[in-house]
C-alpha cells in the first residue's frame, strides 16, 4: 500500500458518477493529505531517515531542508494538513461545511496533493536528493537532543 494508491483513490472518488455527499468530500480531502503524508514518509525511508508519528515532522523536515522543491512540498503539505484537520474534526464549522460542499475546493485539494507528489518525485532524484538529505540532517542536528548512550 502506498501514498500513490491513496491519492488514486481520492481522485477516483472525486471522478465517480453520482452526487457527492459532504461526508464523501470530507473523506476525499482527508485522503489527499494522507496520500501526501505517506509519500513523504516513503521518501524519508528511502533516504534512510527515521519514521515519526508526529504529523508536524515530515512537512517541517521538507521545509527546513532548504531545497526549493522540498520546501514547496512541505509548505503545501502544511496547508493540506490544515484542510484535512478541518474536514475531519470541524463538523459544525461553517467554513468546513462550505468547503466540503464545494467541488471546486475538493478538486483543488486533489491538485495540491498531486503537486506534492510531483515535487517529492523531484526530491528523490539528484541533484535535489543530496540537498534534501543534507538539509534535513543539518536541521536534525540543530534541533534534536543528542541521544544518551
Amino acid at each position: 500500500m502506498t501514498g500513490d494508491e491513496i491519492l488514486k483513490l481520492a481522485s477516483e472518488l472525486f471522478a465517480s458518477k453520482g452526487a457527492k455527499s459532504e461526508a464523501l468530500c470530507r473523506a476525499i480531502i482527508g485522503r489527499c493529505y494522507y496520500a501526501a503524508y505517506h509519500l513523504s514518509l516513503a521518501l524519508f525511508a528511502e533516504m534512510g531517515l527515521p519514521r515519526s508519528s508526529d504529523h508536524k515532522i515530515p512537512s517541517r523536515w521538507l521545509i527546513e531542508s532548504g531545497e526549493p522543491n522540498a520546501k514547496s512540498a512541505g509548505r503545501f503539505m502544511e496547508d493540506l494538513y490544515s484542510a484535512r484537520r478541518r474536514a475531519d474534526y470541524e463538523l459544525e464549522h461553517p467554513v468546513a461545511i462550505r468547503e466540503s460542499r464545494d467541488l471546486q475546493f475538493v478538486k483543488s485539494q486533489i491538485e495540491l496533493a498531486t503537486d506534492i507528489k510531483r515535487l517529492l518525485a523531484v526530491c528523490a532524484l539528484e541533484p535535489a536528493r543530496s540537498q534534501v538529505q543534507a538539509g534535513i540532517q543539518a536541521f536534525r542536528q540543530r534541533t534534536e537532543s543528542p541521544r544518551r548512550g
Partner: protein
Amino acid sequence: MGTSSPSAAGAESPGAEQSIVVGSVPQMLAGHSMDLIAQIVAVSRQLFPGEVSYEHSPDPEGGTHDYVIFDVIAWGEYADYRDRILQWHDEVEKIVPNNAGAFRLIVHPHL
C-alpha cells in the same frame, strides 16, 4: 475568526484594512499577535484580493500542533494561483522568520 473584506477584488475601500479577531491566537504569539496578524492579512489581501478571514486552530488531538489559518479566495484554477501560495509563504516567512509554520493558508478557488 477574523475577517477583512475589500469591496471588490483588487479595489480597496477606505477602512478595509480593519480586521476583527474573535477567539484566540496561539500562545506562541502572545504579546505581538495583532501586529503579526495585521501584516499577514495585508499580504493575504495583496496576493489574493477578496475576503480574507483567519482563525486559530487548536490541536484537536491533544498535542501542540496549533496554528492560525488564513482563508482566502482565488479566481481560476489551481494552476492559476499555485505560485501565489508559495509567494504567500515566502512573505509570511519574512514577517515571522522563525515560526512561519504557525500560519497556514487555505485557498478557496472560484471559477
